[in-house]
């Protein structure tokens, strides 16, 4: 009997999730490891969806660009809750399509000690206009040394430049060491 109730709850949950996704036009939801293969699969899936809905080319290209940077940010920077392994880079990924814009929402675990530095970068990027972002990008690309994982510290600047929108973010504390970092990138549908 209890099994039946459990399975009923699960079906109800699946239906609610479906309804929520439909009303909010969420095209993609994922929680798990973010690898190069996942990045390629999601970007090509999103590309196909956009091509089918005859989204203008410029918008498609921007969504593609921003998705790659967001996903590669997770695969390069995400921390993990367990101490056991360092190479399991997990996160959540959501893509939603609104009347005026696409939103790409990513979330990953981050060490609390990294938050002040990241917050400072995000606030600095959000304080700049197009020309300011361009000079920050040029300065950073000249100074940057590629990390072992191939990060150049340019991802967030690039997202801000290409979307022309402010980066919206939040940190939710999980425990005294870790938080959950949520980043929302907005790509306008009409240029």
């Amino acid at each position, binding site marked *: 009997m209890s099994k039946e109730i459990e399975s009923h709850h699960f079906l109800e949950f699946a239906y609610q999730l479906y309804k929520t996704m439909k009303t909010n036009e969420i095209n993609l939801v994922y929680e798990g490891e973010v690898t190069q293969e996942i990045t390629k699969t999601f970007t090509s899936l999103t590309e196909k969806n956009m091509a089918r809905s005859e989204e203008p080319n410029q918008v498609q290209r921007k969504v593609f660009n921003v998705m790659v940077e967001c996903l590669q940010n997770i695969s390069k920077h995400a921390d993990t809750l367990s101490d056991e392994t360092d190479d399991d880079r997990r996160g959540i990924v959501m893509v939603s399509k609104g009347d005026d814009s696409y939103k790409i929402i990513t979330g990953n675990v981050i060490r609390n000690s990294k938050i002040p530095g990241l917050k400072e970068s995000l606030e600095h990027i959000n304080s700049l206009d197009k020309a300011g972002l361009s000079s920050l990008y*040029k300065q950073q690309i000249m100074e940057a040394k590629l990390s072992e994982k191939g990060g*150049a510290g340019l991802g967030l600047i690039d997202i801000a430049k290409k979307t022309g929108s402010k980066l919206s973010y939040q940190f939710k504390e999980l425990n005294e060491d870790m938080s959950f970092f949520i980043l929302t990138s907005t790509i306008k549908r009409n240029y």
Partner: protein
Amino acid sequence: MDVINIKGTDDTPNVILDKASGQFEISGRSLPEDVNMFYEPILDWIDQYAEEPNDHTEFCFKLEYFNTASSKVILDILLKLEEIVESGKEVIVKWHYHEDEEDMLEAGEEYADIVEIPFDYVLYTD
């Protein structure tokens, strides 16, 4: 000199580097999982080429997309080409951009601000 001829995939670009025929081109998409590993032989090749370059080098970039990690390596390539310019030989960068991709034109202009190499911007359509 050896010829580099790498066929592109959905996350790595086509690369042709051929001193004898004077063909130097990187095209397609560049978002490799390991940027350092992919570009190492290319940077080594250009290093070697810079020691004895042709009198005239026309280096063609025709990228549809590159990620920020690749953008750093592209700067490294351009800095090597700049050394050739400084040695007194002629280098020109042909920077192609798609008509729907103004960001790609801007990216080229940003590189042109950083390095002392003449850039020629080439618009293309599908």
